[in-house]
């Protein structure tokens, strides 16, 4: 989002105060029924409140106890709704800033779109635009809706969407034809065909997603809800039947203590935080400037088995760079380096600059002072396929091997074994040989190669540890592709890839049960993006690509797939960790409540009171209070997410089991004891 909203902390008053308000509104049972565990808690809270009122009216001695239990049961519900409200809070703030970007847009609708050159238009509100309308957008106009540029070139400020203030070029045709409503044209003009209905535009979708208005439960969330509902039902059975078993044993259990037992046993911790975890996950994604069209896609990202990455721009810098100078025919390293440096001084291409940098940094050649020498630069042309320099009588040329051979007037078989060997070994390693000559003499070869981005190999290794295979897709020939693949450390590659091959590859992998993620920006990527389980389209890409994918990366950075995968995993891990914690908690709660309930009937059961809680009443109240407070205590974890480490599943599991399983077993023993000490210390029971 825009950089101003990015920095809002969840725990700033700007989020917390409205969240408190929302938390109360969310108590509406019609809303809560979506969350069975908390819904049951609310019903129980109502029942206990009614009992408390009865106790008050009859001046019963137990009113103090039932009142406090009722209070803490309400807190339990409130803490759960508060967690969700906080998670939504930051999204709301972000949505607000987006909404500001799209208020009061007007469109200049072309009256005669089919007449070229006719720019006569009428001004209508953007809400009245239909799909297929053509609008003209001029300097300083806001683009009224999502669409496709059909004429013109303009620079567009998209910071309202991407947070990136540098303008981007939008032009008709090609991969940069998509524009987004709410962005601003800052030079020239564009003719745009509108492609979405008002209210369904990209910004609208973003707002909807961020606010969670359209948030549907993801498949895994549904499965987990079923587990939690099942557990709730099991404990309901256990508690209701306990009434009968206790009656047999001569104990008349009150509804209040049974209610307390039920609420402490059902998984309120994870039940209360479940939706907050999902919302916070989407929110984290948005802070990475990625918009997912559904939570399902984010979850699928955690499951991805294979990552399809384009070579150019993702794995390599996209420009070939000089990596070595190979002299031939007795020419010294230094002499060759000097010659190519001279020939490249005026070469402003990336290749030329890389030659200068290599000569200067690796070969320690100093460039001559410009003014001192009479120099003629020969620029590269597609016809000659040569560039070079005429300086102080020296004619230095560099270029493709054939062109340079022609320049020196030699056939390939006259070039000498040394030269041919160097050229071939470069080609074999996937590089491009650049021949260098002076007058009629071959000086050597420059090894140009596609340079792999630093650190990318480590990222792939991390992905491998996560269990994710990376596959490089490239238009290069298989030899070049293999060389780069091995240098970058990808697991596999697809050379000379056409869009159809890409699609076939995805289908083949999916048939084997694998989940595929890929990113793309071009229209020809669209079918593959749609077929992939996680398709990340670049914001800079075409409208077709953006609609085919299920995520849009506003920064248009392909390596971000790795972060997306991590966020997907984090969401699942956080759910699992809190579920485990919640279930493990129950052991301690039994040890608090069961002896408290039956110690009057069977004094021997006092031996189960291993926490040494002060009295049966304080024990029950402490368990209820702990159960409520733990929700609040875990809100930060739910929002931040459990940290993902790429260490392999077994190691990750044992680590998390230790923290959340064993921790969940031990923590409540300590927590309930502490609460009990405070409760008895204050004398409120």
């Amino acid at each position, binding site marked *: 989002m825009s950089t101003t909203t990015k920095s809002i902390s969840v725990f700033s008053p700007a989020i917390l105060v409205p969240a408190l308000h929302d938390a109360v509104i969310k108590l509406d049972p019609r809303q809560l029924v979506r969350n069975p565990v908390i819904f049951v808690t609310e019903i129980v809270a109502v029942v206990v409140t009614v009992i408390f009122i009865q106790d008050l009216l009859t001046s019963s001695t137990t009113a103090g106890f039932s009142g406090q239990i009722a209070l803490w049961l309400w807190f339990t519900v409130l803490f759960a709704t508060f967690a969700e409200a906080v998670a939504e809070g930051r999204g709301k703030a972000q949505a607000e800033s987006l909404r500001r970007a799209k208020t009061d847009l007007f469109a200049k609708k072309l009256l005669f779109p089919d007449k070229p050159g006719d720019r006569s238009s009428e001004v209508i509100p953007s809400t009245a635009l239909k799909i297929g309308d053509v609008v003209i957008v001029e300097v300083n106009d806001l683009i009224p809706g999502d669409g496709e540029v059909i004429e013109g070139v303009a620079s567009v400020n998209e910071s309202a969407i991407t947070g990136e203030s540098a303008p981007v070029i939008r032009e008709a045709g090609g991969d940069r034809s998509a524009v987004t409503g709410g962005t601003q044209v800052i030079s020239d003009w564009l003719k745009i065909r509108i492609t979405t209905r008002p209210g369904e535009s990209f910004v609208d979708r973003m707002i909807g997603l961020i606010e969670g208005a359209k948030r549907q439960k993801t498949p895994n969330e549904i499965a987990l809800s079923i*587990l939690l509902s099942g557990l709730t039902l099991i404990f309901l059975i256990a508690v209701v039947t306990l009434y009968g078993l206790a009656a047999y044993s001569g104990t008349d259990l009150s509804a209040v203590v049974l209610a307390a037992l039920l609420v402490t046993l059902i998984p309120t911790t994870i039940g209360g935080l479940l939706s907050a975890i999902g919302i916070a996950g989407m929110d984290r994604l948005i802070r990475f400037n990625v918009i997912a069209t559904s939570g399902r896609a984010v979850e699928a990202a955690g499951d991805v088995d294979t990552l399809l990455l384009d070579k150019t721009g993702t794995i390599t810098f996209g420009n070939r760079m000089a990596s070595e100078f190979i002299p031939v025919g007795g020419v010294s390293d230094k002499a060759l380096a000097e010659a190519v440096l001279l020939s490249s001084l005026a070469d402003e291409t990336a290749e030329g600059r890389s030659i200068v940098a290599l000569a200067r940094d690796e070969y320690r050649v100093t460039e001559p002072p410009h003014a001192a020498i009479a120099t003629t630069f020969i620029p590269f042309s597609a016809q000659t396929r040569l560039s070079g320099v005429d300086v102080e009588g020296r004619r230095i040329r560099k270029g493709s091997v054939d062109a340079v051979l022609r320049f020196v007037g030699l056939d390939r078989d006259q070039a000498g074994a040394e030269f041919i060997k160097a050229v071939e070994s470069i080609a074999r390693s996937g590089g491009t040989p650049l021949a260098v000559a002076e007058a009629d003499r071959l000086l050597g070869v420059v090894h140009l190669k596609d340079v792999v981005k630093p650190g990318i190999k480590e990222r792939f290794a991390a992905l491998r540890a996560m269990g994710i295979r990376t596959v490089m897709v490239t238009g290069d020939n298989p030899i070049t592709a293999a060389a780069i693949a091995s240098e970058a450390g990808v697991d596999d590659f697809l050379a000379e890839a056409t869009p159809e091959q890409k699609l076939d590859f995805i289908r083949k992998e999916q048939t084997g049960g694998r989940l595929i993620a890929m990113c793309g920006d071009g229209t020809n990527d669209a079918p593959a993006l749609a077929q992939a389980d996680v398709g990340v389209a670049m914001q800079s890409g075409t409208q077709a690509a953006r609609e085919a994918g299920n995520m849009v990366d506003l920064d248009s950075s392909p390596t971000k797939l790795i972060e997306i995968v991590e966020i997907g*995993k984090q969401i699942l891990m956080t759910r699992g960790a809190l579920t485990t914690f919640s279930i493990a908690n129950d052991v301690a709660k039994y040890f608090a409540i069961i002896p408290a309930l039956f110690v009057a009937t069977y004094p021997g059961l006092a031996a189960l009171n291993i926490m040494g809680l002060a009295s049966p009443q304080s024990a029950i109240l402490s368990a209820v209070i702990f159960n409520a407070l733990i929700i609040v205590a875990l809100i930060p974890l739910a929002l931040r997410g459990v940290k993902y480490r790429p260490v392999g599943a077994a190691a990750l*599991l044992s680590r998390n089991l230790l923290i959340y399983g064993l921790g969940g077993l031990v923590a409540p023993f300590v927590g309930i004891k502490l609460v009990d000490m405070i409760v008895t210390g204050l004398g409120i029971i």
Partner: protein
Amino acid sequence: MTIIGWVQIGLVLIATLLLAKPLGLYMARVFSGERTWLSPVLSPVETGFYKLAGVRREDEQGCLSYTFSVLAFSLAGLLALFAILRLQGVLPFNPQGFGPVAPDLAFNTAVSFVTNTNWQNYAGESTLSNFSQMAGLTVQNFLSAATGIAVAMAVTRAFIRSKTSALGNFWVDMTRATLYVLLPLAIIVALAFVALGLPQNLDANFVATTLEGAQQTIATGPVASQEAIKQLGTNGGGFFNVNAAHPFENPNAFSNYLNIIAMLSISLALVYSFGQMVGNRRQGWALISVTIIMLVVGTGVVFWAETAGNPLLHGAGLDVAMGNFEGKEVRFGQSMNALYAAVTTGLSDGGVNAMHSSLTPLGGLVPMFLMQLGEVLPGGVGSGLYGMLVFAILAVFVAGLMVGRTPEFMGKKIEAREMKLAMLAILILPFVILGFTAISAVAEFGVSPILTPGPHGLSEILYAFTSAAGNNGSAFGGLTGNTPWYNTTLGIAMMLGRFAYIVPVLAIAGSLAAKPRVPASSGTFPTDRPLFVGLIIGIILIMGGLQFFPALALGPIAEHFAMLAGQSF
């Protein structure tokens, strides 16, 4: 506890484990439809059966059709057995001239044997004719066991297969389970039992004159054969009412070893078959380890509690060296009683060689708890395997999330549908056990059949419903179960415990079979390592413990502390 006691426990378990591999491999071949060394003899018989019944063995069933076959077949068995019991007065092989079995008892008994529970509200030697025992009960001992194995194999295939609806053919699975597995083993074990001194005849009771000159009626019959299938099929219904404590059912230490080995053998070996069939033997061993670890711990607790004995008796001046020997047979000794108690309840066998009601409170808690854990350690033949797989699915779901992937087990993704069905299956036990126990505990018709009031009485009821719902069949004793209320409700509990579990389990199988099998990667949570063994034990304990802890606290746990405080019931 004694060293020699632990050595015996160790030897029996090792013998069973040694059997698991060859028997498991053999069964894997049988249920993959491959040829075995028994095929030359049995294949014509098998083909003959299919011809007779019009079954085409290559016709595989989907989950609905398979489930329907299981239910229809069991219903037919139920009706047939009910009819035999009601009509036994006019049927042959009735040397004692027993009349028809009362309707509620006949219902209870019929359900009991069809569900592989073998809860015995009847006293075999004084109620049932030889025909009822052989054509009725023994037949169901085979068929109910074979049904369990068949269902387990259908579930196993769901893990092996990918994108299909076919789970196998129930009739073929049934036939092969009976013909290739149960029958040959039963013949071998029955012969061994005869060699060890068990009676095998079709005689009427005979009357003996004791040394004091009194007349004693001694019942015999086809004991060895019924004993063999009783244990192999984890049925547990003895020929005699006191089951394997009776000197004719279990005359000596060696017959006792064979009893335990026979009941463990198939259930344990089926787990191995599962590993073999899914192509991961380590998975089989992992699940076997879960079983063995929990059985050893359970046995240890019983062994310890029983040798420690009852402090009240110590105070009364009894010889305390042997511990609590009330209700036990001295010819087996404490360790073999403990192992038998743990194994018979960890399995859903239910035969007993000691009276569980007479165990110390903690000693009695263990068998009850082992049943409440869902009869998966290793559980009844077949039923134990599919029960264990439901727990594995739960464990994978809860913990598998913690590795950051949609949980998957053996390459099958565990999603909402599987969770829903697994929870349905898991809910059955607490619903039936706690529901019926609570009603019985507050109603006159429930409380009056109790022998001992107080927490022990609650244990009697709780044990009865636990045993019925878990299709175990062992009785705590004390409770007079042969009343209309208990005959009916225990019958319902047994049916729900069996079929209300099988239906969702087969539905899970159907759903899993339809999914593709995802290849494992280093991001997949491995389910064949010690970590998973520990995890699944934790899930089983927490699920079982959390559901039943309050009930247990009011029964055996309260009784234990009362005993320490000098009070007995």
